[in-house]
């Protein structure tokens, strides 16, 4: 029986010719990732392991990005714990404030994630690297600790859902709309325990940043990973960013899939996920047809989902020469220092500031209600982030609407959910 792309990568890393869905395997890891929230718990667990030390100081990435620059004393203690662990173990890829970025934007940019890798990260959005043809998945702190110590992790081999993407996105429609559409279609547990494998000739029309966004939110459908085939664009990206050897795996022609969907990219519309689940999606046309406009207080453009340069360029195109609505707080967070610099060189930051937005250092802060844009009771935010659960960005009575950078920027100008088309 044929294997899916994910199964082939896992088989190769488990030293097996063949794996099948449901099989328990132990796989070698190419990279183990943690941040300032999850690493301290992992480090505490690692201290309990009798054989001290890490399996490979070059294959661990520690990225304090959630509550940095330190938001309070307790966060500072967590970051200190991570920093001291990194120094003690001579971790090559520890990224301090000033060189850090949001982990899932930073690691591909630094060339640490390439096609064919098996990567675990103590952060649920670790699935992002599937955009480059890697198997990557989120785990907890204990798995991270065991991974750092042994270089291995156990997995239940997943079955897969295949998404056949055809055609080309319309103007103002992006990768975010593709993944929100899919989550709206299959639900927040529609891909539970499974791989989401994206195929089809529509992929060549998606930028790398679109693909990162799509793979990033596989977890929001319950998926174990999201993965794209490795094409010329992905190879060019890896050649530009990485010196690591990559391996291209392709699904067998006779691989089995639990379900298959075909999605015409050209038919997709700007899509917004209403509170309090990413599956509560409406197209912009459905929003416009609502009796009352959805008035908002804040817009956040950033995060591991949508803080990349394409996202900022799109937001700038919308905001150029305009001003955010009176009373609107528009917070823009370039995801890495490099993206920040690019945005500066391209004049995007000037556009944002002139439009009345603020531009922040890279941080996950507002996405998870940590800091840098917390919502009060009754407030509404259109956000390019990935979750709109109850209390996600602040008070339990606040509301988060997930959208693309285009919709978020347009909404900042009008003060209600809007599309640049208007």
């Amino acid at each position: 029986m044929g294997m899916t792309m994910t199964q082939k990568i896992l088989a190769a890393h488990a030293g097996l010719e063949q794996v099948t869905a449901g099989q328990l395997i132990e796989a070698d890891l190419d990279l183990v990732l943690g941040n300032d929230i999850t690493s301290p718990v992992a480090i505490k667990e690692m201290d309990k392991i009798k054989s001290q030390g890490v399996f490979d100081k070059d294959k661990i990435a520690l990225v304090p990005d959630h509550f940095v620059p330190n938001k309070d004393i307790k966060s500072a203690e967590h970051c200190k714990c991570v920093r001291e662990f990194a120094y003690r173990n001579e971790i090559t890829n520890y990224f301090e404030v000033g060189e850090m970025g949001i982990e899932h934007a930073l690691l591909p940019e630094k060339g640490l994630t390439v096609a064919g890798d098996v990567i675990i990260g103590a952060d649920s959005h670790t699935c992002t690297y599937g955009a480059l043809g890697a198997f990557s998945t989120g785990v907890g702190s204990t798995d991270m600790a065991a991974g750092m110590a042994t270089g291995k992790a156990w997995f239940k081999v997943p079955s897969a859902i295949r998404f056949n993407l055809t055609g080309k996105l319309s103007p103002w429609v992006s990768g975010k709309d593709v993944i929100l559409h899919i989550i709206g279609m299959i639900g927040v547990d529609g891909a539970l325990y499974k791989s989401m494998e994206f195929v089809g000739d529509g992929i060549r029309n998606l930028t790398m940043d679109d693909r990162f966004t799509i793979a990033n939110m596989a977890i929001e459908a319950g998926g174990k990973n999201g993965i794209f085939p490795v094409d010329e664009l992905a190879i060019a990206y890896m050649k530009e960013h990485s010196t690591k050897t990559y391996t291209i795996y392709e699904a067998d022609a006779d691989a089995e899939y639990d379900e298959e969907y075909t999605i015409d990219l050209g038919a997709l519309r700007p899509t917004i996920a209403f509170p309090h689940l990413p599956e509560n999606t409406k197209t912009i046309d459905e929003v416009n047809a609502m009796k009352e406009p959805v008035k908002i207080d804040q817009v956040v453009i950033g995060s591991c989902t949508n803080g990349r340069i394409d996202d900022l360029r799109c937001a700038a195109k919308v905001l150029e020469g305009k001003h955010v609505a009176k009373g609107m707080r528009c917070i823009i967070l370039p995801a890495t220092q490099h993206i920040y610099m690019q945005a500066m060189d391209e004049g995007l930051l000037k556009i944002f500031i002139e439009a009345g937005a603020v531009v922040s250092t890279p941080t996950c802060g507002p996405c998870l209600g940590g800091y840098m844009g917390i919502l009060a009771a009754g407030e509404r935010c259109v956000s390019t982030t990935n979750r709109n659960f109850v209390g996600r960005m602040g008070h339990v009575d606040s509301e988060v609407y997930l959208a693309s950078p285009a919709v978020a920027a347009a909404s900042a100008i009008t003060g209600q959910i809007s599309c640049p088309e208007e």
Partner: protein
Amino acid sequence: MKANGSVFKYGDNVDTDVIIPARYLNSSDPAELATHCMEDIDKAFIKNVKKGDIIVATRNFGCGSSREHAPIAIKAAGVSCVIAETFARIFYRNAINIGLPIIECPEAAKGIDAGDDVEIDFDSGVITDKTKGTTFQGQPFPPFMQKIIAAEGLINYINQ
């Protein structure tokens, strides 16, 4: 190994943000995390939960972030087991890894109500609702998972 306690009942998609809101993730101390457990979905939970009590929920329990703080907070609050129709996969791994027993059993998740007195036999997977006098067959843990839970987590198990 058995668990016995009173049930707290929840619905679909109980996410890790309501189990332990991120505003408290500047701590990793289990006892401190426990004081905020379920705060954004059920403010009364932490006041009323007693050692041994059981959480029962329907689909996709623990969806969202990878924060191990979620099962840690539940365990430190005294909960002896979580029963659900399905669990989100990272939460499932994390619960096993820290030694918090969890059981997938759609029939029990639907048939048990808040406040019921429930007993669980981990060796056989049998769940008994003593209030209603009903029993359900959950999946018993495979032996290696039982050992991890008995050792109070993966790391202790590795050390053994």
